[in-house]
């Protein structure tokens, strides 16, 4: 199971990468995409929407089930991954790179400190 160093993780299997200017990129982990199986639909938030940490922010759906994705931190959506509208399997094939879901501008950067590091997340899923 791939759990890249340098990313932050949540209990609900989102990953968070800190970019520049208090912007983070969010996706679901390799473990999550394997558990979900082949994704057939990804519902993303709209750019400009505000979310608090732990809000339902997106939905990923496999043939069998729908799973909520939670905002790992509070902030405003500044970009979404439009490519997923045509091919949600990108999330399965490249969960940490091409399969990212959305970017948030942090409203409370200190929330990042509450997230798990790679080793803690690895412990949780193994």
């Amino acid at each position: 199971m791939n759990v890249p160093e340098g990313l932050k993780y949540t209990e609900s299997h989102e990953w968070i990468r800190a970019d520049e200017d208090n912007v983070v990129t969010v996706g679901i982990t390799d473990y999550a995409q394997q558990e979900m199986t082949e994704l057939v639909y990804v519902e993303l938030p709209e750019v400009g929407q505000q979310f608090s940490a732990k809000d339902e922010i997106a939905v990923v759906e496999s043939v069998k089930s729908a799973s909520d994705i939670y905002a790992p931190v509070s902030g405003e959506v500044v970009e979404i991954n439009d490519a997923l509208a045509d091919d949600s399997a990108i999330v399965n094939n490249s969960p940490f790179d091409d399969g990212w879901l959305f970017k948030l501008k942090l409203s409370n950067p200190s929330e990042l400190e509450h997230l798990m590091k790679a080793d803690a997340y690895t412990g949780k899923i193994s």
Partner: protein
Amino acid sequence: MDDLRRSPLHDTHVQLGARMVPFAGWEMPVQYEGIIPENRAVRQKLGVFDISHMGQLFVSSDKTGVAADWLDSILTNNVAKLDVGQGQYTLLLNETGGVIDDLIVYRQSDTEYFLVVNASKVDEDVSWMQTKLPASGVSLTNRSDEFAGLAVQGPEAVTAFQAMFGKSQQLPERFCMSTITTDNGNVIICRTGYTGEDGFELFCPTAAGSHWWQQCIDAGATPAGLGARDSLRLEKCYPLNGNDLAPDRTPLEAGLAFAVDLHKPEFVGRETLVRQKTKGLHRRLVAIKQTEKSPPPRPGYSVLSGDQEVGTLSSGGVSPNLGCGISMAYITSGHNKIGTALDVEIRGKRFPAEVVRKPFI
């Protein structure tokens, strides 16, 4: 999954890396490689499903015709019409015409009938049938624990059958059965399935399950799970009991009139069906297709016509072959004609859909 029953093929599934899920009181494989590739394997080549969870009941009588008469008093289709070796799709109804179970009944010999019923309904079917059993002359036996079951489905099924049983053996005609004696026990072969493809269902002694599974794999079948099975049957609009069939829905509402013989003078539930046929149906189970990109339609979602709720999805999902959302729902009359535009409500948003002809493919 402590209280769940396990198929005789359980270890085989685990070794293959199957994802095991609870289904109808059993722990069964929902997928191996993936629902979409498994669906495609069945449509294009050959797949094999473990159906050991399904129930096998035997009904017999000493005198010819007695067992058939009794079955005809509790099933909707016409058992008396079956020749030895023939089978038919039929329904077991409650007193008010609602569906207890859908099943296939085969005439195995002059006096013995073989019934294949849904896993989730074995106990209920048997209890119900026992209350209807005459004091003497007919016996009903639940032998579900004695059989492993495999469904071998796909365009290459005939070739696979010959590879497994030799060219001297004949695959029965559609909806017919035969019994083949082998070194691995007697094997019942039924030319039926739940995928819409050619194929057969094989019932063998529990201990021989792994042997015949491997024979299917060696004959070119791809292991396929319940997820693929559900997507295949939905594409063909085959109802799933518990979703599309229920004790408060009749076979006429479900569009299963072909399996109901109202010419029979009497059978349990007949009165309601005759009344519905005379007075018309308030709702019908229809096929609904999403007409624009949408999240997958799923059971429980509301169906709207304007602001009026006209039904609830009983089954739904993304069709791997059509690449769009497909579903079935009981829709109120006036809104259930082919071509009617409807909306499916998904997480508070409406997505346009249309009533289409069955099956989807």
